[in-house]
């Protein structure tokens, strides 16, 4: 028995391979720079490292002035959406080994929101649109003071859009949003969808009215950038299409 154990030595004792990469980061310091500038950092990283680990390595060991947002580091707080190799992703969910490491990896702030510093943008316009769709349950008191019942089928109707972490990867991947900052954007519509199709909610009409606007769902040009960018795999464009159809029908 003991020999069998000795034969099957755990693989964990092996060394995690490392490799060299270049991170090309778009820096901007509002107190010094007139224009953003690109800066290259050469580093040796583990095959298990994510882009967020590389950013930490730079901030902690090379240049402490590098500025970015992150909190959970596990894909749930929605703080670290950024443009990595020209696509919106969460730095904490992007393994470096999955990118093309033969070329420099570009890291930029998300597009369409005011750049504040390095990888940080002003998220207020994004959250303003979110607030405008009334992202909370709108319902009167229940008859008899009991709980609001919902069948599994009714719950499944809006399950996809409950997963949003408000990272803004979708909204800032949208070509319409880049040129028209007034557009509500995919994230606000996703969060409206979450309540419009909730059988317990009574505010669908109000939300459909809000989104039946020049800057509402009709701005959507179905480029699917939002669906491709969403780190939660939400079918964003489909949710927008469902809201468009609900507006045409006049109800959810």
């Amino acid at each position, binding site marked *: 028995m003991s020999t069998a154990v000795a034969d099957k030595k755990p693989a964990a004792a092996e060394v995690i391979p490392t490799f060299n990469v270049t991170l090309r980061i778009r820096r901007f310091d509002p107190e010094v720079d007139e224009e953003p500038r690109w800066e290259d950092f050469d580093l040796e990283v583990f095959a298990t490292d994510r882009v967020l680990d590389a950013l930490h390595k730079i901030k902690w060991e090379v240049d402490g002035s590098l500025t970015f947002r992150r909190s959970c580091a596990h894909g749930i707080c929605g703080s670290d959406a950024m443009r990595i190799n*020209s696509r919106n992703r969460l730095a904490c969910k992007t393994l470096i080994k999955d990118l093309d490491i033969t070329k420099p990896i570009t890291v930029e702030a998300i597009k369409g929101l005011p750049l504040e510093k390095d990888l940080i943008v002003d998220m207020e316009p994004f959250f303003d649109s979110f607030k405008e769709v009334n992202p909370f349950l709108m319902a009167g008191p229940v008859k008899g003071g009991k709980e609001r019942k919902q069948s599994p089928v009714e719950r499944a109707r809006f399950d996809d859009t409950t997963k949003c972490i408000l990272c803004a990867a979708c909204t800032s991947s949208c070509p319409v949003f880049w040129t028209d900052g007034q557009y509500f954007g995919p994230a606000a519509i996703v969060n409206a969808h979450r309540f419009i199709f909730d059988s317990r909610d009574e505010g669908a009409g109000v939300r459909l009215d809000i989104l039946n606007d020049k800057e509402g769902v009709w701005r959507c*040009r179905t480029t699917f950038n939002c669906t491709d960018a969403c780190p939660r795999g939400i079918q964003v464009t489909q949710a927008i299409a469902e809201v468009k159809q609900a507006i045409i029908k006049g109800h959810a």
Partner: protein
Amino acid sequence: MPEKSASNLVAEPKSPSKIRSPKRPAGTLYRGNEGMWSWVLHRITGVAIYFFLLVHILDTALVRVSPEAYNQVIETYKTPVMGLGEIALVAAIAFHAFNGLRIILIDFWAFGAKHQRAMFWVVIGLWLILLAGFIPRQLMHVFGG
């Protein structure tokens, strides 16, 4: 032996060193997929068709002003350059029409939103078939005399 491996495991890779500043102030071009590029083409072809129609309505209206001038204009359309231009026009309209149907299916049919990528390649396929039928005939017409 295991001790040695374990110490290798915790050993950090060398600290990063070099910092360089490549010149390229603007951000990179967003790398969208089929959906984004089909939209770019849809808009370019839509605007192009619009300008063609504008000119075409004006030249047709000319017949009411002066039939001779109208004939002169129509004569210039028979040159090879215009013949090739017609190929570009047919290509633009065909793409815009097929992709327009794809967008309608995406907006009104749940299947469409799920399979938009496949539908894009169907659009390209139909478009190529249509052009394969049209271009040889048009070239014979233009250069065959």
